[in-house]
């Protein structure tokens, strides 16, 4: 069996998880990390947070072309706008899983946004330290974002002794942390860093060196950054680079506004009017809130009996597809799509373990 290009392989793994449940487009939103209520529910419900934001740079047109190719080659199919994985696709995944060493962490949902800032801080810190200790004040900083530079100023060791000590501590900390990774992953991290007389390498260069596709290089690198972020407390420098970063900004901005209205006691229709938004949008927001907040008053919207009914069918029919569930619960006519979604979202959360 022929290996697929890395990102197509990842897409195929995800396709297996979402089989017959969602559209191909929905998978695109997950892989690129779109922050919409729907996508956020999806990744939680199908437990695929670790695919979230895996390829934020994947262009839509390319994605369309590549998934069309995969359909033509019968890895996947699409029926009624839902993705279906074929037997060929499944065995492709099987082969891949057999000998792929998945990195210890990758979680674009938890770390996606903060990892970027964390990395910029770390890389800039190391570069400046390296150059300064070499007595070189003339160099081009790898990152010039003003916020990152301000962080650096605040955390910069003042004295030469301080710098030397930080360098030797950081050396040991990074060495020990990176030793726990595969050699290739540690290599990627170190070669994206610039220092005295050594400039960081581009993705193309690294891909040539490691004979690994650029997509895979970037994925492995990112996962290594997630790993460093997760273990930042093992290094005094890294912990500062991670400070103040919201590990996950839970709700979309617009949903946060709706939540504020909700907390003030406004009903859905009132909110829709006040915010000049469609009812369906406000429903999306409520579903998103339900999926995030333990305190969500689900009972105000769906009775306990109804909740049980919906969860029962979701379990026995092994689906989260709304249409199927709606038909199943149809004798209870008052149960509309919104009720079903709300229930699924609320119990989709791992910490609500009743589902």
């Amino acid at each position, binding site marked *: 069996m022929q290996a697929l290009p890395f990102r197509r392989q990842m897409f195929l793994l995800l396709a297996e998880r979402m089989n017959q449940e969602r559209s191909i487009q929905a998978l695109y939103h997950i892989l690129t990390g779109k922050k919409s209520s729907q996508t956020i529910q999806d990744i939680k419900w199908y437990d695929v947070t670790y695919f979230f934001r895996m390829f934020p740079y994947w262009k839509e047109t390319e994605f369309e072309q590549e998934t069309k190719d995969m359909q033509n080659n019968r890895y996947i199919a699409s029926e009624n706008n839902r993705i279906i994985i074929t037997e060929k696709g499944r065995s492709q995944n099987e082969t891949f899983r057999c000998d792929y060493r998945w990195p210890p962490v990758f979680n674009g949902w938890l770390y996606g946004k903060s990892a970027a800032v964390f990395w910029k801080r770390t890389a800039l810190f*190391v570069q400046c330290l390296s150059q300064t200790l070499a007595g070189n004040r003339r160099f*081009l900083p790898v990152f010039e*974002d003003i916020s990152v530079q301000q962080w650096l100023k605040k955390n910069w060791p003042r004295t030469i002794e301080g710098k030397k000590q930080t360098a030797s501590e950081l050396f040991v900390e990074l060495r020990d942390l990176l030793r726990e990774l595969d050699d290739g992953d540690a290599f990627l991290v*170190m070669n994206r860093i610039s220092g005295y007389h050594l400039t960081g390498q*581009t993705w*193309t260069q690294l891909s040539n060196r490691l004979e690994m596709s650029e997509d895979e290089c970037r994925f492995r690198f990112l996962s290594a950054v997630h790993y460093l972020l997760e273990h930042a407390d093992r290094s005094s420098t890294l912990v500062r680079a991670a400070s103040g970063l919201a590990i996950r900004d839970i709700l979309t901005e617009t949903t946060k506004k709706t939540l504020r209205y909700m907390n003030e006691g406004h009903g859905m229709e009132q909110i829709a009017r006040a915010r000049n938004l469609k009812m369906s949008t406000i429903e999306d927001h409520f579903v998103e809130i339900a999926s995030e907040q333990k305190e969500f008053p689900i009972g105000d919207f769906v009775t306990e009996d109804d909740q049980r009914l919906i969860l029962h069918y979701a379990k026995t029919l092994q689906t989260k597809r709304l249409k199927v569930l709606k038909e199943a619960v149809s004798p209870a006519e008052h149960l509309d799509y919104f009720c079903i979604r709300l229930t699924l979202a609320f119990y989709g959360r791992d910490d609500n373990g009743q589902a």
Partner: protein
Amino acid sequence: MDKLKPFLEHYFGYTTFKDGQRQIIEAVIRGEDVFAMLATGSGKSLCYQFPALWKNGTAIIVSPLLSLMENQVQELKQAGIRRAAAYNSFLSPPEKEYILRHLNDYKIVYISPESLQQPEFASRLQKLDVSLLAVDEAHCISQWGHEFRTDYLRIKEIRRMAGNPPCIALTATAAAEARKDIMEKLELTRPFIHCDSVDRPNIYIDVRKKKNEEEKRTTLQDECSRLPLPGMIYVSSRHKAEELAAFIREENGLKTSAYHGGMSNEDRRLVQQQFLNDEIDVICCTNAFGMGINKPNIRFVIHYHYSKDMESFMQEIGRAGRDGRQSLSLVLFDTADGMLPRRMIEHEFPSEEEVRMVSHDPERPDVVSSRFLLERYGLEEVHARFLQYYIQTWQKTKGAEPLDEFVSAVIERRMEWKLEKLKQKEHWLHQTVQCRRTTLLEVFDEHKTSTVSPCCDVCGEHTMHGQEQHRNTGQQALSWEERLKWILHQ
């Protein structure tokens, strides 16, 4: 007493001015408009950087390429001049906002002609004390301004908005016609004009015609193993840049990298930095890289595809030998190569079809933005900007002739001019009897006065072979732990 010299030494660390610098700087300080043409690598940047620091207020430097802006800001910062910034489309919104809010804290702000036009920047200019407006690489006005970078033609409007600060235009490569065009388009008033020879005597000029691509490759590989390093290879497509970088890396075992506009901002910076730090032997690039870039020790510039005109060529080979040492320019071409620049020239303009579609659309509003053109007619961005500019120009003529005829006439005129320039370049390439330098200088209305040796493939051989100067043994071999050790000085 001469106050300029101590200032020069204090801020730039030079003890003397180079030829022409003093006169130009004095004129700028007096507040005159200036047009300066000096050879590549002769120190034109200083001609606006010095007055920028000397005068009160903020100097705005219009610069065509991102890589160039970054290179210059970096050099300034390295010289300890921190109040410099590059304002461009690659900045994030908060970064842009930061620069805008602190505009008058900067002494020097580099900007592209496109960003200069953006309302948020233009509006700040009105409140800013602009010490001078410099247009670096001013030949871009006449080379690109008329088609795909029409914002070059609008600089004069911005200048008026900024309260008519003195304007200085600098270039190393403008033929007579272009010089006139530049001064006109910038509305320089009775400018101080300084033109020096554009010749670069330490660059040997070699042109070789090959039967086909295969032969070109063989020669390229050959030369890369013989010539001293580092060097540059110019090609006209992103794809070719990548391909040749891989080819030279594999065949010659050199450290190579591609550089082109299709790379991410971060990667471009890394490659530029690696090249400036001598971590790359050969860079394969499109014309997104090069203009104005100041790396002293480049030993050769090979054109694997030839440029569209003599001016660009002069510009591109001007990267070589800026330390004054013997260097080389080599053009490799075969008969099929003429296709590429022709296709590129054609592509600079919207098609006839598109022009007609836009002109005859009854629902086209009076004032169109390029965004509108882009979205409504599916035009490419450069074409949209082109049309937007000429629709505006046409409106000023009160629509004496139909829009499509007006635009088509512009296209025809410009296309013809471009093809003329290309033919001039090709004529120069094909002829093998006259000295290359003599004929190259004639384009700029110059006569070769001194004898140069070694000069060119027509006059005689060069002697650069075998000078194993600097070849990278490559830190590639470092393991990650060794790299970590080195970087943190352990």
